[in-house]
């Protein structure tokens, strides 16, 4: 390809990268908080589904995606409350509860989708979602225009949300206590802070953001709900957190990395006359992410108390 072609090719792929990465960014950022406080939530897939469904349902009835988003967060917070109640207060095994959330998330959303929308199948898919906002002039810029200035509001939001997250985690007393809780809860306890409260807060943040990540799929990236529409994104987000070394920006860039590989495979399939079996292209994101992860030079250790319920006397 000659330079110009390459540039436009890249521009399109990178624009898609950002859109595809967005659900991972929200979800993994939330999980960073939860895990930094020592709570591992492998139920992200389920929480995302619940977020996706509530956002869809509310937007469908109110016709306003903003309400959908609010509803998704509420749904996420409810999940978080339940998750924290079980894993923090009742000290239940976090993997168990996470696994359960995945089951319930899929079952509940599918069941409700049918009970509530089975009649309205056709219409159910027609409501307004967040549509791309073209920033005047800027969006006309060559190369950058398409990537940076022709996205929907939730995509634009990601860097700012991550920035806020990083600030909260590294620059506030709350963040300090979160980071301490995941490493050495007893210390937090003896410093007069309430380990339980901090973990509740972090889990709530985690689930709320996961729900937003799911909602993005139904009220921003597309405007419909399908059973299991998250298609495993919750699990990828889980991996993203580890590869991103439990840091907000790490999660941000690893999400983009995965999004890039995914966009690339879709784009390569779209090139007419390509003969390699499409499954090879499909495998690309997972394979490359795995390779990147395994060959990482520096790999941070997980928070020492990750997954360990805290029993104070």
């Amino acid at each position, binding site marked *: 390809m000659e330079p110009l072609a390459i540039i436009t090719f890249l521009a399109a792929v990178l624009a898609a990268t950002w859109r595809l990465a967005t659900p991972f960014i929200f979800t993994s950022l939330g999980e960073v908080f939860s895990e930094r406080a020592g709570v591992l939530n492998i139920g992200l897939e389920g929480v995302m589904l619940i977020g996706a469904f509530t956002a869809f349902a509310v937007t469908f009835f109110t016709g306003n995606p903003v309400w959908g988003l609010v509803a998704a967060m509420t749904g996420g917070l409810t999940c978080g409350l339940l998750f924290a109640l079980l894993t923090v207060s009742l000290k239940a095994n976090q993997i168990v509860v996470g696994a359960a959330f995945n089951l319930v998330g899929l079952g509940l959303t599918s069941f409700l989708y049918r009970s509530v929308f089975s009649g309205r199948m056709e219409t159910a898919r027609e409501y307004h979602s967040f549509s791309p906002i073209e920033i005047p002039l800027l969006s006309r810029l060559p190369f950058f225009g398409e990537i940076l200035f022709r996205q929907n509001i939730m995509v634009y939001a990601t860097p700012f949300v991550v920035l806020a997250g990083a600030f909260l985690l590294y*620059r*506030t*007393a*709350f963040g*300090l*206590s979160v*980071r*301490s809780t995941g*490493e*050495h809860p*007893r*210390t*937090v*306890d*003896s*410093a*007069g*802070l*309430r380990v339980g409260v901090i973990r509740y807060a972090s889990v709530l943040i985690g689930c709320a953001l996961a729900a937003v990540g799911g909602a993005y799929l139904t009220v921003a990236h597309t405007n419909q709900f399908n059973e299991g529409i998250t298609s495993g994104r919750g699990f990828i987000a889980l991996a993203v957190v580890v590869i991103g070394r439990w840091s907000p920006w790490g999660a941000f860039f690893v999400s983009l990395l995965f999004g890039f590989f995914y966009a690339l495979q879709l784009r390569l399939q779209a090139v007419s006359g390509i003969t390699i079996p499409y499954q090879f292209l499909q495998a690309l994101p997972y394979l490359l992410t795995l390779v990147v992860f395994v060959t990482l030079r520096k790999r941070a250790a997980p928070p*020492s108390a990750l997954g360990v319920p805290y029993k*104070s*006397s």
Partner: protein
Amino acid sequence: MSETIIKLENMVKTFSGTVANRGVSLEIRKGEIHCLLGENGAGKTVLMSIVYGLYQPDSGRIIYRGEPIVLRSPKDAIKRGIGMVHQHFMLVPTLTVSENIILGQYPPWKILRQMDKVETRIEKLSREFGLKIDPKAPVHRLSVGEQQRVEILKALYQGVDLLILDEPTAVLTPQESAALLHFLKEMAGRGLTVIFITHKLEEVMQVSDRVTVLRDGRKVETVDTAEVNPRKLANLMVGREVLLEQPPKTGAEGEEVLSVKDLSIDDERGLPAVKGVSFSVKSGEIVGIAGVSGNGQSELALGLTGLASIASGEFRLCGKIANDLTPRELSHLGLAHVPEDRHKMGVVLPFSIAENFILHDFDSPPFAKNGFLRTGTITAHANEMVGRYDVRLSGVEQQIAQLSGGNQQKVVIARELHRNPRLLLVNEPTRGIDIGATEFVRRQIAAQRDTGSAVLLISSDLEELFALSDRLLIFYEGRIVGETPARKELIEEIGLLMAGKSMETNSVTK
């Protein structure tokens, strides 16, 4: 200055089953240094944890500065100027000193923009009290002594009037301990009140104004230090006569069991920790390794037991080059190892006591037969051992986690000695355990020596080294900086060597 700052009235605290405190009453005077003595499990830590608001008492009143108070959490205690330095440090290793110090000091929404302000204030404090520390350093990089300084600074930063220290000297050099005790005296002079938990009687004698002795959850007595001596205190604690000195060594030294040549070992971060040391241990002798913890002793122990790889040099066990042998092969060669941290290595906390006894031999007869565990034999063995080593427990099926540290240590000692090793490597065998247990453990080690084993004893407790060793090697920054006979009179030189004061390797002899 006999005004009372805090008064405890029949404090009672029970944990599922175990009664930790059965109605303890105690008065602490403003500006005094008050020692708490007692065996493991006597209830010292729990009692103080209550004063610090970590635990809520089942019954009993706390009267602070004349008015009864309720401490729902350490926050309440800190607000009132009560600070505590815990036995197991309460520091977040991944955070910096200053982050650790301000943890919990500000409301959640507080923005920590001006860390530098905090840091200057900490520097000011550390200068004022002579507690040298770099506020920016991450805690996991600090030596144990430094970490303790951080703990104390934390209390000072919060502004304490009553400072509780739980076994603070268990991990310090004589110099560090001396410095700490001196510091405490000075602070007491300035009106700070100190409650000081320890197992070391001479410290009590040195520093305290009064002593309270606890025995299984009850107060035995509070006495003016001036009116007692160590033996008296020991009897109060244990409730019987204790021999503080070891019986003289019997039996002669034999052939070389362990010989170490130019041995170098790296720590887990890959930095050199042991730098070309050479020495040997003969059968029938106890060689003590003295040094501030963190000068390569731990790595030496790991290296000699096959748990860390040898960077260069070699060591022979019973004449066989052992550099690349696995822990298993080494123990078959006759090595037994009492590790430094029993909770991390020595025992498997969720396992039963019986299961812990077979940690090395779980797959060899008599405990295993063609691949299967023989529960009967295992239980029988455990019962015999706990009997012989007088481990206090309710049953060998009980989780070892529920035993006191002292009793956990007895299990480890029993397990290792039972192997009747050619070389016995013991690392901090009595750290944090009480006199009764200590006496017992030391006897066992000496006895093992007398039956002809070679013993390498690593300890940061000079008393212990003097009590047990035949000769001492002093470690400083991974090197042996001196060899001395194990005689108390030499404590000055030894202390200096441990602190790296005199660099040239010299043999002190008289």
